[in-house]
């Protein structure tokens, strides 16, 4: 933990602000998220649909358009040359870091490859933009790289529709990582893949991260994938970071009632013990509940939960959680240890 974080967000608030017929609507998709990611770690961001995962990703990538508006807070990268602002980059700055330093494996690899360009052409365009080199050279580089992915060089002559879903996803990952970026974001990289293919993609991501020493930010709702890949996991609920800890703690000793439920409701191949669902549903983010946003569904809700928002407090070993049940406990810990952020 001596190194400065490669990515740090402080009190980030990003809202979708729309105005139609004089009615202003604000969807608070990311509402006060602070996190810091260390170089070389796999950081998982988990949560259900509509919890703000994808919005948070857009902000961390510095890739946002109206109506999504950064309202407060900062996002900064640090590639060992001091922090640089990620939210206020101009086009030239984006072009200089995108793909070569900060990269992104998008969701749904079916739709991200140009359907009328051969894979080899796409690779050449991609590489030559950042490192001008002749076609022959990029071909050699790509061939060698694809071999690591278990893809034959015939793939370069193919069009995307000629490849299977798993091959396309591997091509997409290869594109995103061939320039050895330091920071890779992966948005649901295995969703929509069959399980056997999913396994190979998970292992592939693990291998790339290890061999290149890059930092991987993994966004997925699939807790099985999170358990397999992530070193640390942040759980989002209704635009808030409710808990963050190392993967083992999240799965074995979660403290927030929402995380406890999320982990407890997962079916396994080991037992048929009855599992329960939470009542209700995640709140709409244009009108979130007061106090703790989880209180209408929380089995332990107290009076204070309805009016006062619980602070995100640091427990032992950097474990952070936002729940009134543990706020007092953390007060004691805070005296002996400085809080993380």
């Amino acid at each position, binding site marked *: 933990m001596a190194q400065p974080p490669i990515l740090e967000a402080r009190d980030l608030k990003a809202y979708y602000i729309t105005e139609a017929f004089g009615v202003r609507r604000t969807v608070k998709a990311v509402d006060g998220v602070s996190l810091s990611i260390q170089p070389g770690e796999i950081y998982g961001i988990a949560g259900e649909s509509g919890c703000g995962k994808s919005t948070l990703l857009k902000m961390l990538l510095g890739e946002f358009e109206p109506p999504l508006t950064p309202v407060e807070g900062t996002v900064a990268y640090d590639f060992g040359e001091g922090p640089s602002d990620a939210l206020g980059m101009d086009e030239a700055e984006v072009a200089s870091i995108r793909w070569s330093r900060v990269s992104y494996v998008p969701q749904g690899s079916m739709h991200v490859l140009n359907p009328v360009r051969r894979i080899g052409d796409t690779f050449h365009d991609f590489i030559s933009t950042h490192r001008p080199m002749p076609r022959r050279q990029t071909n050699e580089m790509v061939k060698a790289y694809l071999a690591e992915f*278990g893809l034959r060089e015939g793939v370069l002559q193919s069009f995307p529709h000629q490849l299977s879903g798993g091959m396309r996803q591997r091509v997409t990952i290869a594109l995103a990582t061939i320039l050895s970026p330091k920071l890779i974001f992966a948005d649901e990289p295995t969703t929509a893949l069959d*399980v056997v293919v*999913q396994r190979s993609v998970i292992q592939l991501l693990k291998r790339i991260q290890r061999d290149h020493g890059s930092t991987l930010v993994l966004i997925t709702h699939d807790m099985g994938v999170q358990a*397999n890949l992530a070193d640390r996991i942040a759980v989002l609920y209704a635009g808030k970071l409710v808990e963050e800890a190392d993967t083992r703690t999240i799965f074995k000793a979660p403290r927030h009632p929402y995380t406890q439920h999320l982990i407890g409701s997962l079916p396994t*191949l080991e037992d048929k013990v009855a599992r329960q669902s*939470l009542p209700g*549903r995640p709140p709409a983010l244009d009108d979130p509940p007061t106090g703790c946003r989880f209180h209408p569904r929380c089995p332990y809700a107290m009076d204070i939960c309805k009016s006062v928002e619980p602070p995100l407090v640091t427990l032992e070993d950097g474990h952070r959680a936002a729940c009134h049940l543990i706020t007092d406990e953390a007060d004691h810990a805070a005296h002996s240890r400085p809080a993380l952020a």
Partner: protein
Amino acid sequence: MQHTLDQPLLEIDHLTRVFLSRQGLSVTRLEAVDDASLTLTAGKPEIYALAGESGSGKTTLARMVLGLERPSEGTLNYKGRSVGELSARDKRTWFYKEVQPVFQDPFATFSPMKRIDSYLYETARNYQVAKGADVDKRIDEALRVVGLTLAEVRGRYPNELSGGQAQRVSIARALITRPSLLVADEPVSMLDASLRMSILNLFKDLRDKEGVAVLYITHDLATAYYTADRIGVMLRGWIVETGPVERVLGSPLHPYTQLLKSSVPQADPDKAWSAEPTLAPRPVTFPVSGGCKFAARCPKVMDRCRVEIPASYEAEGRSVKCFLYA
């Protein structure tokens, strides 16, 4: 109907469905379902899971069970009557009431422009399940089974309901005709984790309290294990292994079932995989002519697997389509 207890509820025997696709002069034969057999007994309702990867034929099999697709070969009997030979009238007045579908995405099932209760009234009217004020009563009954009431649902549009609630309404709609068999094609794959279990628990309740059998079609082995009594694992049209879910998924025998099970990411960091691939990806040539459909990928492949098609053999309380157990 002329239905006796010793007759199975659903009897599928050597069922095959072939799709032909023509490109110019060449015709490609695709056996979406190939020589599949399974039986659901009457009198003792159970949840039978059909599991497999995309393209394994599970949806085609389900569509045949629903009477939406005609079998090319083999037997498909519901309560002793061949589904393919039912007249349109029999289907409308009997079969469609008995066998009801539940679809994948509740928000795609219901039009966002229509009130969600209109679907309930439409089903009640189409199948003439009740008259006058009894219609409301019957709909309310069906909704109560899934934990809702007509008062809660009346006049609501789909966007006013959560995914879990909308899927409950979809199941309630299927229950209005008092079916004996629900065919649920990936009913929870579009739902969030916190809502998923309530739907799966509902299927168990329907089995235990309402006596409804469920054909649960899924790609997710963990939910199949949780929900089902028996399971059939499909591979490119074949049911390669079938039996009690604890046996088939607890200790799989078919090499394909073993591969599938080992590919499920466990929600337990102690069971994470290493970064090294266990199996080098091997090219698979399509179509494989003759022999076992898994031979090209099978780690235990033998010479005869490439030329002969294995039968289903009984082994350790289940049926396995693999020469290892011949």
